[in-house]
C-alpha cells in the first residue's frame, strides 16, 4: 500500500499511524478484521444481542424536568450511566472484545483512567473467557479505588503505573509497551477515540449507538431534533458516540474539556497545538520542545493531554465547539443533579452538565441533550476525602 492510498486513518491532517514498526502488522490485521466484521451479519447480530442482553441497551433518554425549570430550557439526559458497569465504555469494550475473539487473541490489555473502561473491559473479557490486564496510573488507582476492586473481582490483573504523572497518559504508554512485547496473542483494547488508525474509527463506530438511539428517542418524544448536544471530552469517546448521531443534522455540537484549577488543566482543544501522541496527530498540551505537559483534572477520565483526532478535525472546521469547565463548576453540577433529579453523575459527565447550565443561562429556552456518560458512585470516596461533598 503506498502512502497516497493510505488516507483512511485521517481526519483532515489528524490521525494516522505513528507507532513503532513492530505494531504495524497488528494494526493492519485489526483493520482487515474490522472491515470483514462490519460486512458480516453474524457479527452485527452478535453485537446487537450483547448490547441488549449484557449491556442493557437501549438506554433511556430522560427528560430532566426540575433542571429544565431551574436552568430555563429543555434538558434531556442520555442515560449511559444506566448501562452495565455504569458508563458508556462498555459499548466499545464488548465490541472490541468480540473483535479480539474473532482475531484469535487470547489476551487483552487495556488502559484506564477513571477505571470505567477497565471495569468494562474486565467484564467483557470475563464473559468471553479472555485474559485481561489493565494498566492504571497509580494516582488513579488511589482516587478511583472502588473500580480497582471491581476489576479484580471480574478476574482482571490491575497493574498500577508509577511513572511520571501516574495517570491516564502513563497507563496508555504502558499498555502500548505491553502490546509491543506480545503482539501475536494480545489485543490492545483502547478505551477512547485516540491512538493509531483504525482505533479512532472503531471506537467511534462502537460508541455511535449512543447517538443513533438518542436521535430516534428525541424525535419520538419531541417530534424534532434538539438545538444542541453536549458531552464531556477527555479522549472523547462518549462525545464522538453521541455526536455521530447528529453530525449531519442542523444541531449544535458542544464538547466540554476539563479546566482543572484554571492554570493547570486538561483542555488541549482550547489551549493546545497539533502534535503526535500515542500514535495519532491531534491537539496536544506540549511545550515548544515537543514534550507533553502534565495535566490536572478532578476527573481521572478527562485527565489527558491529548484528544481524539476526529475532535481535532471537528474543532478546526468548526463543526463542533469546545468549551472549558473547571473542577469546582463540575462538582457543583454533580451535586445539583444528585439533589434535583436523584441521579449521581460521574464527575466526568458533570463537566457536560455544568456547560449545559452555562449555555442555557446565556441562551435560555434551548432544547439540549447532555450525554450522561457514566454514574458517579466511583467518585464518592475521592470527593469526600477532599471535603467537596
Amino acid at each position, binding site marked *: *500500500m503506498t*502512502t497516497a492510498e*493510505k488516507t483512511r486513518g485521517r481526519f483532515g491532517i489528524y490521525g*494516522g*499511524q*505513528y*507507532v*513503532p*514498526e*513492530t*505494531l*504495524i*502488522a*497488528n494494526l493492519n490485521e485489526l483493520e482487515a478484521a474490522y472491515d470483514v466484521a462490519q460486512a458480516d451479519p453474524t457479527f452485527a447480530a452478535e453485537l446487537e444481542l450483547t448490547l441488549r442482553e449484557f449491556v442493557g441497551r437501549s438506554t433511556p433518554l430522560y427528560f430532566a424536568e426540575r433542571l429544565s425549570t431551574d436552568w430555563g430550557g429543555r434538558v434531556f439526559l442520555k442515560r449511559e450511566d444506566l448501562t452495565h458497569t455504569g458508563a458508556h465504555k462498555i459499548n466499545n469494550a464488548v465490541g472490541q472484545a468480540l473483535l479480539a475473539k474473532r482475531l484469535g487473541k487470547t489476551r487483552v490489555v487495556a488502559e484506564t483512567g477513571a477505571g470505567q473502561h477497565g471495569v468494562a473491559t474486565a467484564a467483557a473479557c470475563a464473559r468471553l473467557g479472555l485474559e485481561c490486564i489493565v494498566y492504571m496510573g497509580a494516582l488513579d488507582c488511589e482516587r478511583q479505588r472502588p473500580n480497582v476492586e471491581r476489576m479484580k473481582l471480574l478476574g482482571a490483573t490491575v497493574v498500577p503505573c508509577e*511513572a*511520571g504523572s501516574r495517570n491516564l*497518559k502513563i497507563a496508555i*504508554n504502558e499498555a*502500548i*509497551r505491553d502490546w*509491543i*512485547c*506480545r*503482539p*501475536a496473542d494480545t489485543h490492545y483494547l483502547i478505551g477512547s477515540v485516540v491512538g493509531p488508525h483504525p482505533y479512532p474509527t472503531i471506537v467511534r463506530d462502537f460508541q455511535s449507538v449512543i447517538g443513533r438511539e438518542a436521535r430516534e428517542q428525541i424525535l419520538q418524544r419531541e417530534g424534532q431534533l434538539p438545538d444542541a448536544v453536549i458531552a464531556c471530552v477527555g479522549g472523547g469517546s462518549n462525545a464522538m458516540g453521541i455526536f455521530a448521531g447528529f453530525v449531519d443534522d442542523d444541531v449544535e455540537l458542544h464538547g466540554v474539556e476539563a479546566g482543572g484549577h484554571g492554570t493547570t488543566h486538561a483542555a488541549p482543544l482550547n489551549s493546545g497545538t*497539533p*502534535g*503526535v*501522541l*500515542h*500514535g495519532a496527530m491531534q491537539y*496536544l498540551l*506540549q*511545550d*515548544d*520542545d*515537543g*514534550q*507533553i505537559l502534565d495535566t490536572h483534572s478532578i476527573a481521572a477520565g478527562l485527565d489527558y493531554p491529548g484528544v481524539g483526532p476526529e475532535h481535532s478535525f471537528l474543532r478546526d472546521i468548526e463543526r463542533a465547539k469546545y468549551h472549558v469547565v473547571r473542577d469546582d463548576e463540575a462538582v457543583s453540577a454533580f451535586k445539583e443533579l444528585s439533589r434535583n433529579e436523584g441521579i449521581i453523575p460521574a464527575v466526568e459527565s458533570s463537566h457536560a452538565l455544568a456547560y449545559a447550565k452555562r449555555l442555557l443561562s446565556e441562551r435560555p429556552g434551548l432544547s439540549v441533550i447532555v450525554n450522561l456518560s457514566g454514574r458517579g458512585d466511583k467518585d464518592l470516596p475521592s470527593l469526600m476525602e477532599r471535603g467537596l461533598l
Partner: protein
Amino acid sequence: MSLNAIKAAFEKAHSEGRKALMPFLMSGHPDAEGFARNLAEAGRYADVIEVGVPFSDPLADGPVIQAAAAQALKAGTSLASTLAAIARRKSGPPVVLMLSFNQVLAHGLDEFAARLAEAGVSGAIVPDLPFEESDALQLAFTQHGLAFVSMLAPTTCASRMKTILEQAYGFVYLISVAGVTGTRDTYPSETIEYIRTAAQIARVPVCVGFGISKPQHIEQLREHAAGFIVGSALIRSIDQGGTIADILAPLREACDATITTGTNQ
C-alpha cells in the same frame, strides 16, 4: 558529518573486516557533563554513535532507558542542549539521534533537519514514524544530506520489508525481537533467519538492536548483520557507576573478531 559520514563509517568497518558497533547514549544522562564525557569515551569504541533525545512519553523504550530519559528531562535536557553537546565535539564517529516524532514536529521538519546538519549530526532514527508517514521528513533529510534511518521489526511482513529496504538510507535498524528496548539472554533461530533475509535484500548495512548486551549475542548474530546497537546494557552500566569501557571493550572485540563464515555487508 552527514549521510556520507555514515556510509564512510560502515565502509571502513567492512573493509577492515569488522562489524560496526553503535553504542546508544541518552543525552543529558547521567548529567550534562557525564554525557559529554561518555560521548567522547564511547567514540573510542564506536563506528557510529546513537544519541537519544529524552521524551516525556517514549513508547518503544524499556524501563532502563525510560528512567534515563526521565532523569535527563528533569535536568533540563532539550534538543538544543543535545545539539550543542554534539557540536562541541572536536572529533569522533558520526552521530545519529533517536527521538520521538513529536520532538521533530515541534521544531518543523525542515528547521529540525537544518539544525541537525548544522550541529554535525548525520541522521536520525524516529521509532514512532513508520515508513508510511515518513515521506515529508525523508525529503527534508535528503535536502540537508542527512540519513533517515528506517526500522524493521520481526512482525514486518516480507513485502513491506522489501519496500522499506528499497528506500533505506545510511543503514537500517533491525529490531531483533518484538518488544521494547532491554537486554535478553539468547535469540531464537527465527531472529537469525530474519536478519539473513533482510541482509540479502538490503542495499544498506543491516544493524541489529534491542537486547544486545554481551559478546555472545554478537557472536550468535554476526554472520548476516553489518553492525550492532547496544543501548540498555550501556545505560545500566553508567547508572551503576561502571565505565564505558566495561561494556564496550568486550563488545568491540566481538565485533572485530575475524569473520570466518558467511557473508556480510
